[in-house]
């Protein structure tokens, strides 16, 4: 079995009085891992902590087998980091910038320059590689950030909101690149985003953070709960006792009964159970439709919020 890419053991991070990460314990396998959470959930802080840029107030972390606290330089030599904010080294052409980043990561100058050319072609900046980075558009700046993270051929790539500010075509191309890196190039990546479709497209596993705490983790397919059947349900005359009765019967649910509620039926239950419980509690079922679970459901359940609110948080 492969060694896990990242192991977190009770990691907490404080910025002054503010607790940015709360006792996170998780094991992230190799492959493409999505780091999900609303803005301010602690995604970027987690990445910076794993890079050894932020010291945790408690807990231990291992990245690619190295203890982050004891060997931060060994970790950084084997990982690539694409920051969320616009970042470049001023006054350089793209190829000089990427080659310089390669040298900083330990590549000899000639190899760094050769790799810079190759990586710039790979991310789609081959024709613009002699332009000054400061003249690049937002989408091109995202690509060059990916190129500098890839130039030293890392084993693990941290991508912090890589599709931010990109137009739809550029976003699709970036996601295709990310998918290719994780599958064809066999580089483990941690993809931080608040855009669920992006993560669902590119990743196999997710780690959901909410207010600095771990809300859910695991393979997307498992978290979606494919073993359960999911229904959209709207009722009239709902009472808390109806919800309690549903849960008592092993039917998990979220959302508001008067609006749209999502119910998760265990495998051995049939939809008739819903009608029986509704009848017992004098509740009318106005809408019942089978639903395909999505990452959005996982996200909403992890955050313990109605679907609409969770969806609003993505934007």
């Amino acid at each position, binding site marked *: 079995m492969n060694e896990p890419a990242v192991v977190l053991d009770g990691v907490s991070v404080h*910025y*002054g009085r503010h607790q940015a990460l709360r006792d996170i314990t998780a094991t992230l396998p190799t492959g493409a891992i999505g780091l999900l959470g609303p803005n301010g959930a602690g995604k970027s802080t987690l990445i910076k902590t794993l890079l050894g*840029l932020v010291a945790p107030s408690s807990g231990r972390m291992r990245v690619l087998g190295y203890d982050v606290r004891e060997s931060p330089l060994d970790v950084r030599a084997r990982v690539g980091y694409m*920051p969320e904010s616009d970042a470049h*080294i001023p006054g350089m052409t793209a190829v000089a910038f990427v080659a310089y980043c390669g040298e900083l990561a*330990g590549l000899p100058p000639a190899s760094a320059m050769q790799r810079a050319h*190759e990586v710039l072609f790979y991310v789609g900046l081959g024709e613009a590689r002699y332009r000054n980075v400061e003249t690049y558009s937002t989408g091109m700046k995202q690509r060059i950030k990916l190129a500098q993270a890839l130039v030293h051929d890392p084993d693990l790539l941290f991508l912090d909101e890589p599709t931010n500010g990109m137009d739809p075509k550029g976003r699709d191309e970036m996601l295709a690149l990310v998918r290719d890196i994780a599958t064809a190039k066999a580089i483990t990546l941690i993809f931080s985003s608040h855009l669920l479709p992006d993560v669902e497209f590119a990743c196999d596993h997710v780690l959901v953070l909410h207010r600095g705490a771990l809300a859910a983790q695991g393979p997307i397919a498992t978290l979606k709960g494919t073993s359960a059947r999911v229904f959209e349900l709207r009722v009239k005359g709902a009472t808390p006792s109806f919800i309690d009765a549903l849960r008592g019967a092993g039917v998990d649910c979220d959302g508001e009964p008067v609006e749209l509620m999502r119910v998760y039926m265990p495998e051995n239950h049939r939809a008739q159970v819903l009608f029986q419980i509704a009848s017992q509690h004098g509740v009318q079922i106005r809408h019942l439709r089978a639903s395909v679970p999505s990452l959005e459901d996982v996200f909403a359940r992890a955050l313990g919020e109605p679907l609409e609110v969770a969806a609003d948080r993505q934007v």
Partner: protein
Amino acid sequence: MPIHDQSYRHYTGERALHRRGWWVIARNGMLARLRERRFLGLLLFAWSPFALHAVQLYIGATIVRAAFFGASEETFHTFLAQQRLFVFFITIYVGAGLIASDRQSNALQLYLSKPITRNAYIVGKLLTLAVFLAAVTWVPAMLLLVLQILFSGSLDFVLDHPRLVPAITLAAALQVTLAAVTMVALSSLSSSRRFAAMLYAGVVIFAGLLATVLEAVTHNGAWVLISPQNTLLFINTAIFNGPPDNLALLGSAGAALILLLVASAVILERRVRAVDVVA
């Protein structure tokens, strides 16, 4: 099929131990400056006093054996004092943007996400500036000494002045270190290289003027301590001419410079971080 596959390939070549990051930063910084014609012009201009002193030494050694043209310890002291103007301009030209520009373009998080420590980053930036400053202070001063030996055809001058080489080295090292450390620390305080340049110029010019005026008005030499440049001049005079009468003031001057260097180090420690914590 293309002749050469230009897509992504895994790297199988050599990887250096992550202990030379400071050198990569310094080399890149120096090469970037050397590609600028304006800067090359400034460097050449900074060597003009060297040319004048070389002519003076030549005349003194071969044509007119007069005291004015002859070499002495004071020749080298004067030369280093004259170079203060070029040290000032080169410090601002090279140093103001060393960290400020990185802060402006969020480059710090890129640097520190590589296998590079904060100390290596700071050393790389300091070295970028220090090498150029040494190139207009220590290097021409030592070359002048070599020329003096060549023009006179003997080692007598060096043997007669055994303190000269250490004095030149120490005085130049103090000049370079003070300018480089102060400028780099001030550069880390802002994300604007212009603001950092104005800060440095303000510290040097305003404090220098104030110290000179207060010294003249009060006839108290202790005012020299409020200006880093005047303090340095005072110490360099002691290095070349021997200890002054007021040894306490010399001790205070040394302590003031050490305090300034420590303050700069504290600023750099607090400001050179990949993550700005405001809470």
